[in-house]
């Protein structure tokens, strides 16, 4: 490994450079890991993927539109050197476009397309494909920012901007705080929406909070980390936790921890082995889930064997009594 990859010592020696990326990975993993339990239990896994793609399209638009409006100024900015990406107005901040596009995609998820004789899933497929195709096409038009866009789409960004870390940190604190306060209410509404509505729970408002918070979290984390790890963090840690425990509270705690671990450890391994960051973070989450599934499978077989032994012992004892 040493001739092709960096050493752990180098990682610690350069921690100042990579600190923001590691923190962003950990915070995004924790936030999306927690929200992911709702995402998985409510069977809206594809929603986070579609929202992440929409966020990537939003960022791509924020790169492309300034170049379209002022091509000469934009080119001059890039000619000035690295980091010369010109933002002609605060309105073209990539994070704002990521949020706007994500919330738009979230609206599609909230809307009920039954009147169009379509399912919600199919509408999400539409959002995913339209956003994915749009981002790739726009990426082809903006050669100067293509590297940034690739980083966002596939999560290969090694360094995270401080502003992105602040956004992700603020989202993690505010959204996790809100979700902890509404935890039982969101569970009730997710598990038994009719019963919740009958008992006077504000079902629409709670669902709106959940969907908007998922949209915001996905948008901000996509801007910082890229679409691939964001989708992974919003699904895989929750699956891992739910495979390991049936206790719902513990499940949320484990998913948060697994998400954070995947973000931090994934970055460290990608540095050590010189692998793409987002894919390695995703791979870390996949490894945790695979280990959990193997453990679950072994535990299930062991439980079944014990149950059979117990049943056969009972039968033998009953038979002895009759004899």
């Amino acid at each position: 490994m040493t001739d092709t990859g960096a050493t752990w010592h180098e990682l610690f020696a350069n921690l100042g450079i990579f600190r923001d990326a590691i923190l962003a990975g950990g915070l995004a993993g924790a936030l999306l890991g927690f929200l992911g339990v709702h995402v998985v239990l409510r069977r809206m896994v594809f929603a986070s993927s579609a929202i992440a793609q929409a966020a990537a399209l939003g960022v791509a638009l924020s790169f492309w539109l300034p170049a379209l409006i002022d091509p000469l100024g934009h080119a001059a900015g890039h000619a000035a050197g690295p980091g010369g990406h010109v933002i002609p107005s605060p309105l073209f901040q990539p994070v704002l476009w990521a949020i706007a596009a994500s919330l738009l995609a979230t609206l599609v998820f909230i809307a009920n397309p039954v009147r169009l004789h379509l399912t919600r899933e199919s509408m999400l497929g539409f959002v995913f494909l339209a956003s994915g195709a749009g981002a790739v096409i726009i990426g082809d038009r903006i050669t100067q920012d293509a590297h940034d866009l690739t980083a966002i789409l596939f999560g290969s960004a090694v360094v995270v901007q401080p502003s992105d870390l602040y956004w992700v940190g603020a989202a993690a604190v505010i959204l996790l705080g809100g979700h902890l306060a509404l935890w039982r209410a969101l569970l009730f509404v997710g598990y038994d929406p009719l019963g919740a509505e009958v008992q006077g729970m504000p079902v629409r408002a709670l669902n709106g909070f959940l969907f908007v918070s998922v949209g915001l979290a996905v948008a901000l984390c996509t801007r910082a980390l890229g679409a691939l790890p964001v989708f992974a963090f919003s699904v895989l840690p929750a699956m891992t936790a739910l495979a390991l425990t049936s206790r719902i509270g513990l499940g949320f705690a484990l998913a948060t921890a697994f998400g954070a671990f995947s973000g931090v450890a994934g970055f460290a391994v990608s540095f050590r082995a010189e692998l793409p960051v987002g894919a390695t973070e995703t791979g870390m989450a996949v490894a945790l889930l695979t280990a959990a599934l193997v453990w679950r499978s072994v535990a299930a077989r062991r439980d079944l064997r014990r149950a059979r032994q117990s049943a056969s012992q009972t039968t033998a004892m009953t038979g002895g009594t009759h004899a």
Partner: protein
Amino acid sequence: MSRPLSSAARTSSSLATPPADRRLPAGESLLDVRALTVGYDGIAILPALTLTVRAGELWAVIGPNGAGKSTFVRTALGLGRPVEGIIERRPGLRLAYVPQQSALDAIFPISVLDFVLMGLQGTGNVLLANLGEHLGRARAALSEVGVEALERRQLRDLSGGQRQRVLMARALATDADLVFLDEPTAALDAAAEQEVLGLIERLRQRRGAAVVMVTHLVEDGLERADHALLLDRDHRVALAATATAMRSAPEFEHIYARFVGRADRQREGERP
């Protein structure tokens, strides 16, 4: 109409023996339905219906599959808009809805205790403040239906009969004045079916709640209920009557007579 029950009175009392001032006076009007037509997108699927559900009453909602029973229940619960007509609830009325077991998610990991705690959330207590106090109420409800030992088990891992008892425990914990039950005996064996019907009776007798029960057990339903509501979308029937009057109603005979007669004959045959 009498004054609504205060929330303080509701939460300070024990579950098993509600004090007299918390019980609604028998016969108190809880739900007044006048010239109600139910349907989808403004299109009526049943004729207009008028009925009054009073405290302590048991209503059986009967009708073939696809008769419009669920649509009626959803409308009465306020989950769907009536096409026409008026639904008037007693001020401060507390409603509870017990879904069909099959309507509950079979994957969702929720413990029995957490499920019953859901019954204590709602208007004025969305966040379930004072969890300690509510835990006591939830456990009392579980104890009342005899499944207190299952509180840590997962709802998805229970047998049909146990799960239905837990659903009933949540209805008890809500301290509701009017409980809607959707097919509470569906997919249960005969013994579990009788246990659940006994619990419904207890809910009514000891707590003074009114119960509206959608059921496929026409004979059992009519035997136990005071009133019945017969719905049939295909035959354009929406008939509310006392259980006794329902048996001799031409609409009932038209829809059910051959089934009822066959069941009666079977019973006769079983007698020694």
